[in-house]
């Protein structure tokens, strides 16, 4: 009788553990599936799911099928904390893929470090993730808020800007973005007057007063750090004020924007992005874009491209390490060069920052017949080595 009870108990616990079976490995992806960043999360999820499906269809990884565990953190750090810990403790995930905003990624990164799990950061690029919040297990795939605005500053260095106005979301990312853009301008010998710095709340639906304030300040250039849904809202409202006809404007998340606005994208606005598939030559990127379009009825923005690549890179690291063991996979990622649909990326040992470029161009006046949205013209791919923080500076900011 006692033996029967013991056997039954063991069976129950083995089912209830929520962990992967011997032939299945779980990976965790907390993300915003509700709230103002839901579009980032949903689009990234498409990329993650495609990568996992294709990986499993080709036999899995080290003989195991991969199970993607997702959770909605609503871009809220407290919720991200709960969901990510749940994934680690209940689902026994072997890696974390994050996230939707720098604020939640910071939390997920800390948990990854505590539990010694490799984390691929495909969205959320605040510089603190590779400096003050740095640990040995998180790897940043995108240009950081130190690099990206500096790339834009480098691109604009010849424009001889005298008066600059900035609009960026009111959280760590937004403030860091503007700070680094202005520093980047100064580093390139441009000393403009900053005639306005505005920080509307993330998720704002009304930018009209900010737009009017920008026009009243009469700048040469308006640097807009808003992204995704906020940026689309901003552009829709700014068009009504004639902003793009009166002032040179620069905006981020280029692909997201042109995909959404299509023919309503203002022509000639300077746009930059991290992974505009139509401008990339990396192996497999065009094929991925076509598969994404066939599966989801839409071309991929940066988020599914980055998310897909995050799985590719992690899988390659697992193969190199020969195991799913966190510290060994992290060691394989550290300083390693990896090929994905983003091209070749190498993660620096000092801060795990990948040498990810920024793509900058101007929105075309015409809609591309192949894709149904305007592409970027005269694209410059800014060399990341010209914009990365020095290892010395990064190390000085990292906690000892």
């Amino acid at each position, binding site marked *: 009788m006692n033996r029967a009870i013991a056997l039954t108990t063991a069976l129950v616990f083995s089912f209830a553990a929520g962990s992967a079976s011997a032939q299945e490995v779980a990976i965790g992806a907390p993300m915003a599936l509700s*709230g103002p960043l839901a579009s980032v999360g*949903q689009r990234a999820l498409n990329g993650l799911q495609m990568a996992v499906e294709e990986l499993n269809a080709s036999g899995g990884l080290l003989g195991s099928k991969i199970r993607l565990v997702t959770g909605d953190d609503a871009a809220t750090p407290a919720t991200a904390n709960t969901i990510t810990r749940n994934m680690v403790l209940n689902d026994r995930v072997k890696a974390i893929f994050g996230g939707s905003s720098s604020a939640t990624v910071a939390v997920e990164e800390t948990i990854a470090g505590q539990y010694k799990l490799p984390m691929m950061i495909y969205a959320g690029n605040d510089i603190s993730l590779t400096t003050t919040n740095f640990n040995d297990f998180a790897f940043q795939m995108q240009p950081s808020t130190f690099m990206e605005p500096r790339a834009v500053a480098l691109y604009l260095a010849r424009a001889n800007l005298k008066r600059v106005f900035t609009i960026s979301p009111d959280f760590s990312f937004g403030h860091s973005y503007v700070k680094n853009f202005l520093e980047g301008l100064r580093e390139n010998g441009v000393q403009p007057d900053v005639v306005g710095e*505005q*920080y509307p709340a993330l998720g704002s639906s009304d930018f009209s*007063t900010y737009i009017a304030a920008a026009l*009243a300040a009469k700048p040469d250039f308006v640097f807009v750090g808003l992204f995704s849904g906020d940026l689309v809202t901003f552009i*829709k409202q700014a068009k*009504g004020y004639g902003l793009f006809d009166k002032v040179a404007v620069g905006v981020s998340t280029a692909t997201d924007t042109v995909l959404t606005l299509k023919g309503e994208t203002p022509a000639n606005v300077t746009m930059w992005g991290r992974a505009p598939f139509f401008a990339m030559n990396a192996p497999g990127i065009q094929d991925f874009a076509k598969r994404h379009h066939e599966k989801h009825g839409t071309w991929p923005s940066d988020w599914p491209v980055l998310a897909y690549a995050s799985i590719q890179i992690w899988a390659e690291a697992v193969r190199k390490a020969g195991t799913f063991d966190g510290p060994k996979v992290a060691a394989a990622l550290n300083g390693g060069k990896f090929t994905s649909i983003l091209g070749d990326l190498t993660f620096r040992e000092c801060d795990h920052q990948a040498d990810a470029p920024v793509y900058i161009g101007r929105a075309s006046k015409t809609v591309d017949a192949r894709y149904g949205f305007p592409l970027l013209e005269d694209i410059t791919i800014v060399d990341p080595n010209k914009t990365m923080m020095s290892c010395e500076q990064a190390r000085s900011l990292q906690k000892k």
Partner: protein
Amino acid sequence: MSAGDVIVQLLSGLASAAILFLVAAGITLIFGAMRIINIAHGSFYMYGAMGMTTMLALLPDGDTGFVVRLVTIPILVALLGAATEVLILRRIYNREHLAQLLATFALFYIFADLARQIWGSDYRTASIPGALAGPVTFGSYTFPLYSLFIIGVALAVGLALFVLLRLTLFGWRVRAAVEDPELLASTGTNVMVLSTAVFALGAGLAGLAGAVVAPLITVTSGMDANILVAAFIVAILGGLGSIGGAVLGAVIIGLFQAFGVIWFPKWSSVIIYFVLIMVLVLRPAGLFGRVE
């Protein structure tokens, strides 16, 4: 700032105020007549906006489709509000305020999840109709024609509410419900039906606000929460239960936001809270509210 810049900023503030008024009017009506603080009010606003982005086979496209949607969607949202009141809220009127607050809070989350099931998590957009898409120019200054349209809609709704509440039997009954619901009931008025009608009207106003603002924004989950705080501030500032207060509150908040971004840019995201606190310190029941 030049005079033209001031005018543009003023109009921008009034356009913001217009949307806030449409949402806050519903909140203040519902509280005034029913003493319920409806946390799910933002959901009606979101459903109005989502409805505007939805291409239904029966509704035509273009300018005509816009008008048809603008009339249809608030009615549909009002019906949703009526159903909510009859099926759920009516059963908790006699409960303590905390229970009512929690119930509407729960509804907020249920409606949010339902919206995600129906429309997904990705953001949606609607287009400004061609007839309202251009700018209005005066000298070298430009202001969106559609924003003037929004101000016009708010003015029309404000006028209609004034006529409804001041000059009709329904309005008399609603104002009586605000003053003394028990006395009203003793006159033979079916207070339950009146409550349903008021709740539906409030929901419909929020739905109209969402439908009107949809072409100017990306419509996404989360917009229910974003509008709620500002709309409640306007309703409380004006005095819960007072439509006139909602008008004045919306204008004050809209203009403080508009000029606050210029004069106090570092504080622009919190300026409305300063205004609220200042008013409540001087008038605890709001500008036109009464201490109960």
